[in-house]
């Protein structure tokens, strides 16, 4: 028989389209879409709606491509960690080679298409973001230093800067501040997760701060980063993208974020284990709300200024 089915073994674990989509980390992509969209819409230059849609789509695709490259390189530690063990590569649905190939191809397509749709400054920042996440963070920092997510967090902070570049063709203090907000938000967000997922990172040998320096130091670092984040986030209210709507939102969110970090700092391991890390889990969930609400307020502020009718278009 020359039938192709004779040449392949079991098909039970064969990848479906959804498994390839999962390679792109859709949940992370949703954050990229949102922050990139905010970068585009708060910029003082209007962008044609279709160009904006395509640009945001390819920024998200670039983010997804770097996710696929991350899954290719991290297949070994993903298999060990409970949180990531069901990802397509460790689950045996998609091969390492496929993940690498998809990651590389989609990176190229995303960068070229963003350059053609918008401009080459935005495309250049996207290319650097993919390189930063896949090479600097995934291949180098993640397994080497407990500061991995501090520096690696920059990759997640670039999307609003790319969105801003799509509209303006450049970089400015406003886009740097949006970058800084996500950059300083990332460590408290991930360290709060690491506080109650410590075992996963220990098993995988990833030098998370909780593993290398303990939870006490991690709690102090969370408070420090949340405190540095606050003036940056509130400061954005006094730039061209700010205003009273964003200022009120930033004040409320940052007071809560710093106060939450202070409460975590006060807690010890006995208290945390007694309530199964309830406060840490709550802080992690709030950190997500914080980011969406902060950028949502920037968007609302921009629409308020533009009169809700998107008159600039």
């Amino acid at each position, binding site marked *: 028989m020359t039938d*192709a089915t004779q040449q392949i073994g079991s098909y039970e674990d064969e990848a*479906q*389209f959804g498994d390839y989509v999962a390679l792109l980390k859709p949940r992370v992509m949703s954050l990229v879409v949102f922050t990139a969209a905010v970068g585009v819409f708060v910029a003082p230059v209007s962008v*044609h709606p*279709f160009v904006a849609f*395509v640009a945001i*789509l390819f920024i998200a695709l670039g983010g997804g491509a770097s996710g696929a490259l991350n899954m290719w390189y991290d297949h070994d530690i993903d298999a060990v960690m409970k949180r990531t063990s069901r990802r397509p590569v460790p689950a045996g649905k998609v091969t390492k080679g496929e993940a690498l190939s998809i990651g590389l191809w989609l990176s190229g397509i995303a960068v070229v*298409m963003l350059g053609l*749709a918008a401009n080459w400054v935005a495309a250049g920042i996207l290319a650097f973001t993919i390189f930063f996440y896949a090479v600097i963070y995934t291949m180098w920092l993640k397994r080497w230093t407990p500061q991995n997510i501090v520096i690696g967090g920059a990759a997640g902070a670039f999307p609003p800067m790319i969105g801003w570049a799509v509209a303006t063709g450049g970089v400015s203090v406003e886009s740097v501040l949006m970058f800084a907000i996500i950059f300083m938000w990332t460590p408290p967000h991930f360290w709060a997760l690491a506080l109650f997922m410590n075992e996963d990172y220990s098993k995988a040998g990833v030098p998370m701060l909780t593993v290398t320096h303990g939870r006490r130091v991690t709690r102090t670092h969370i408070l420090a980063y949340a405190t540095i984040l606050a003036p940056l986030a509130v400061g954005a209210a006094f730039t061209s993208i700010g205003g009273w709507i964003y200022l009120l939102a930033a004040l409320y969110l940052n007071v809560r974020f710093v106060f939450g970090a202070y409460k975590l700092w006060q807690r010890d391991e006995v208290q945390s284990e007694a309530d199964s890390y309830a406060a840490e889990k709550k802080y992690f969930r709030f950190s997500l709300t914080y980011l969406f609400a902060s950028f949502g307020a920037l968007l609302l502020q921009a629409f308020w200024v533009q009169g809700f009718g998107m008159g600039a278009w």
Partner: protein
Amino acid sequence: MAAPQVEHELHTRRFSRNLGVALTLVCFVFIVFGLTYVKITNGGLNQGFDHVVRPELMPLEGAVTEGN
């Protein structure tokens, strides 16, 4: 006489994959088409020069060209 149409097991098994790829490609074509349309209609100073005289390349009347 037409050959009997038998659905191969491979097609059934890979239906979601094939459909996904097909839809992705259709979307990509739509995006390229849409972008082309937007770029052309919002292009500002687009000029087509197919066998047409370009006035800005013509020497100005009475101008002295270099070397003379």
